[in-house]
């Protein structure tokens, strides 16, 4: 069910001609994925997914849609040839990938599993030892900082367009 929800909303998100609806479908699709995470018992990830995506990115997108477009306006249609080729390319890519995935016999580890609890995640996130992720954490924070600076410069410009 969740899978179906995810996929169908995904398809709708990329095909619907109303941009606002596309955003909503995207939202559903993302929620579907969060549901899958839940279902796989990765609660924390699911929570992050909901918070960041649903609460952050989708809202951002919707805001920007409001900023740049009148809601309800139909999106321009792409050329059918382009649609056809895009579909073909995507489908053949999909077929190829699935073929390889299905042919591949995955081997699972026999070691005992680690509970993906919030505590575990939090501990390793800030650990500097082997298996710790303090450094990536720092990197990401710098990245977010840089992104912020960039956004501020770009989006908050005051000069009018000259060219």
């Amino acid at each position, binding site marked *: 069910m969740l899978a179906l929800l995810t*996929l169908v909303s995904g398809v709708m998100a990329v095909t619907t001609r109303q941009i606002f609806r596309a955003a909503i479908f995207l939202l559903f699709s993302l929620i579907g994925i969060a549901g899958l995470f839940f279902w796989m018992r990765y609660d924390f990830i699911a929570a992050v997914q909901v918070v960041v*995506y649903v609460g952050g990115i989708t809202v951002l997108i919707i805001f920007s849609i409001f900023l740049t477009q009148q809601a309800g306006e139909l999106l321009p249609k*792409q050329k059918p040839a382009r649609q056809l080729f895009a579909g073909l390319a995507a489908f053949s890519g999909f077929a190829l990938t699935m073929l390889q995935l299905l042919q591949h016999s995955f081997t699972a580890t026999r070691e005992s599993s680690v509970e993906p609890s919030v505590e575990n995640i939090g501990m390793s996130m800030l650990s500097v030892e082997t298996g710790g992720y303090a450094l990536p954490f720092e990197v990401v924070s710098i990245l977010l900082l840089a992104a912020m600076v960039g956004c501020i410069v770009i989006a908050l410009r005051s000069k009018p367009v000259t060219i």
Partner: protein
Amino acid sequence: MMEPGLYHILFISAALFFIGMYGFFTRRNLITMLMSIELILNSVNLNFIAFNKYLWPHKLDGVFFSIFVIAIAAAEAAVAIAIIINLYRSHQSIDVETAEELKY
């Protein structure tokens, strides 16, 4: 409905990945293209989690990967939207085909 296994999840993620691709190829609105990208990134997340759960549960590599992907996706989306808005200001449109001055 039978118990979904690894391959089912992989099917979903691969499908989502290429749906995102299709969207990226065909949508002319920059924001919807960005949305397609989000789909792609999500499918990757799904992959990581699935692999982590079904194959390599002894470490949390996949989990962390997806956490960071989400973070990156946010940063990327933020910058992209800033750029798009800026583009909108200069071009008065966010149709990708209005911004094709640079070519050949």
